[in-house]
């Protein structure tokens, strides 16, 4: 009896065990066989995290390695409105740190959405304060933000980037394909707490950073140029100003300044009118500065020599029913004096002696009417009409710098050709492309475009242009101790209301180079709509002088004028 009961119990226990194992087996088969694929996907989703990584944008430095633009990871704050209890309370809490209005934050946090940006790309300091204030429903992600540590310095050349880090202007835009970092998607393993353990397959590699750029710009020369231009624009109450400093032997830009400046760190409130690089985009009638180019063409073609005598018509001459005036009544003067005194009549006569085809050929050779191909975006080609569209006074007008549109970069490149023995160089602003470790990947070398005039002609024109500074209209450009060659220009602007030359709106300019005997700098100063006296020799030449002296000293160029030094000892 006891044995049969015991056996019955044993069977019962066995049955229970079998049932138990059966359930486990059934569950095992369900999980491992029937739902295997579906559950494997689910497990992967839980254990793996797919993240999109982007390499840092490349750095931009000046010719001495000074940082002009670089990326830094900063916090961006987002909210999950559906996970918040009180949007109003959260908004009040976060508003002082995020520097966003309480109302705006509350509006964002009250939306019926799963994700909303509250503030993007904050300052690192804000991020540190925010670190102690995070709560459920508020999160932080790190994003790359572009910093321009020098503020407005070189802003028109550097340009700026958009909210998503894409270059929108200047070097940032022109070299976007090199500067931006590599984008890559990586799968990471994570544990039950969501922490990253290690990348799947252990093959994770950080995405490559963008290339870095070394500019030809010198930070110090840029500062001096911007400061002096800004002072001149303020002093003359001008609408704007542009100045370029170029190495005439290579075409390398040492400085490019536009006034007024802007801060690329805070560009959202500004319009294109403020950030446009006027030195490249805005064509203007050059006025008398064109006489330097016309003189080079005339001397190269042996139409004129410095001592060729030209009759100044006592300051008044009629061409094609149009009267041309000189500001000084001249009789017989040498061709050198025509340029030095900036005679319109002498220039017109020279242009007519040269003829339309030859004049046009030299305009093209010097690069007018076509882009210089500088490595910056938005360059305009200027305006040079074809001779078949010229009227009877066009030759005279163009010789005086009218009926032609040039950009400051074209004009300074052309004058730099005279400083460089008649060889026209291609202007450029990026000298090296480097990888993230600073290794040079590509070096951009100076490029010769063409020989425009002979070295002898360039030398002869230089002597004439030196006379402009020593005896002519450009006296205020003279730099003590250095020989300076240059030409002033004062051009009337077209009045958009009447379509004729304005009597009150002018562009005053000065273009030249120094030292004239061994040019290290070619510079152009353009002052747009100065108030009061608007002569190029009055408003632009002094800027040339001040920048020229400081930069030549900075470059260690010694004066060619003997000086006597007196050592003074302090009296007891």
């Amino acid at each position, binding site marked *: 009896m006891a044995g049969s009961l015991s056996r019955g119990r044993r069977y019962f226990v066995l049955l229970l065990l079998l049932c138990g194992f059966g359930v486990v087996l059934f569950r095992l088969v369900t999980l491992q066989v029937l739902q295997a694929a579906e559950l494997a996907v689910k497990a992967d989703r839980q254990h793996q995290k797919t993240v999109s990584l982007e390499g840092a944008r490349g750095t931009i430095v000046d010719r001495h390695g000074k940082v002009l633009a670089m990326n830094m990871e900063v916090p961006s704050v987002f909210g999950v409105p559906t996970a918040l209890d009180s949007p109003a309370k959260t908004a009040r809490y976060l508003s002082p740190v995020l520097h966003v209005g309480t109302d705006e934050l509350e509006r964002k946090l009250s939306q019926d959405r799963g994700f909303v940006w509250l503030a993007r790309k904050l300052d690192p300091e804000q991020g540190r304060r925010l670190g102690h204030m995070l709560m459920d429903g508020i999160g932080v992600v790190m994003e790359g933000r572009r910093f321009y*540590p020098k503020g407005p*310095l070189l802003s028109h050349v550097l340009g700026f980037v958009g909210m998503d880090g894409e270059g929108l202007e200047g070097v940032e835009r022109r070299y976007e394909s090199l500067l931006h970092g590599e984008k890559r998607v990586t799968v990471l393993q994570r544990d039950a707490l969501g922490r990253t353990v290690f990348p799947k397959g252990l093959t994770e590699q950080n995405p490559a950073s963008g290339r870095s750029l070394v500019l030809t710009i010198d930070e110090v020369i840029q500062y001096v140029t911007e400061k002096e231009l800004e002072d001149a624009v303020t002093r003359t109450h001008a609408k704007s100003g542009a100045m370029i400093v170029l190495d005439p032997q290579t075409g390398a830009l040492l400085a490019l300044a536009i006034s007024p400046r802007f801060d690329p760190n805070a560009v959202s409130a500004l319009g294109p009118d403020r950030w446009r690089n006027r030195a490249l985009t805005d064509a203007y009638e050059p006025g008398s500065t064109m006489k330097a180019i016309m003189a080079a063409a005339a001397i190269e073609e042996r139409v004129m020599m410095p001592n060729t005598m030209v009759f100044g018509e006592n300051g008044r001459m009629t061409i094609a029913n149009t009267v041309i005036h000189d500001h000084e009544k001249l009789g017989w003067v040498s061709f050198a004096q025509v340029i030095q005194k900036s005679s319109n009549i002498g220039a017109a006569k020279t242009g007519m002696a040269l003829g339309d085809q030859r004049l046009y050929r030299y305009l093209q050779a010097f690069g007018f009417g076509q882009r210089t191909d500088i490595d910056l975006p938005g360059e305009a080609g200027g305006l040079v009409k074809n001779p078949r569209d010229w009227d009877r006074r066009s030759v005279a007008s163009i010789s005086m710098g009218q009926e032609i549109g040039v950009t400051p970069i074209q004009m300074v490149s052309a004058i730099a050709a005279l400083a460089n023995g008649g060889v026209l160089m291609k202007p450029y602003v990026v000298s090296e492309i480097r990888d993230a470790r600073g290794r040079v990947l590509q070096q951009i070398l100076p490029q010769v475009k063409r020989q425009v005039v002979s070295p002898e002609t360039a030398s002869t024109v230089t002597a004439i242009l030196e006379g402009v500074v020593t005896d002519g209209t450009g006296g205020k450009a003279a730099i003590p101790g250095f020989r300076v060659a240059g030409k002033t220009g004062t051009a009337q602007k077209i009045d958009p209301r009447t379509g004729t030359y304005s009597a009150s709106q002018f562009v005053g300019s000065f273009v030249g180079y120094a030292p004239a005997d061994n040019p290290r700098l070619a510079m152009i100063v353009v002052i747009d709509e100065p108030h009061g006296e608007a002569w190029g020799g009055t408003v632009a030449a002094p800027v040339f002088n001040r920048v020229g002296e400081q930069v030549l000293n900075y470059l260690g160029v010694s004066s060619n004028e003997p000086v006597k030094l007196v050592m003074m000892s302090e009296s007891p």
Partner: protein
Amino acid sequence: MKMLAVFVGLCLVFVFVWERVDMVRVGYQIERLKHDKVVLERERDELRVKFSALSAPDRIATVASEQLGMVLPQQGQVIVIQSRSNGAPSPRDTPVEVRIAKNDLSGGRK
């Protein structure tokens, strides 16, 4: 023999488990170090930006003139002179450039 086989089997299982656990441990270590590296890189970048901003010519000029009372030299007050390392001038000598502030130039340039 059986005991030896069981022992070896247990050892293999132990090694396998130990290896997996250690991989996870090293994985955490790597992640922590990577995080430290990112934090240090951010700090480095921040310092670079700060250094660059502090050394901006605009700022230096303002500090020099407003806090230190320095003034820019007047026109002609800076003269770059060239001296040669030995007395005899030779075109092959590398010129040594010296900058001095001119206090007085009697009969100098006007």
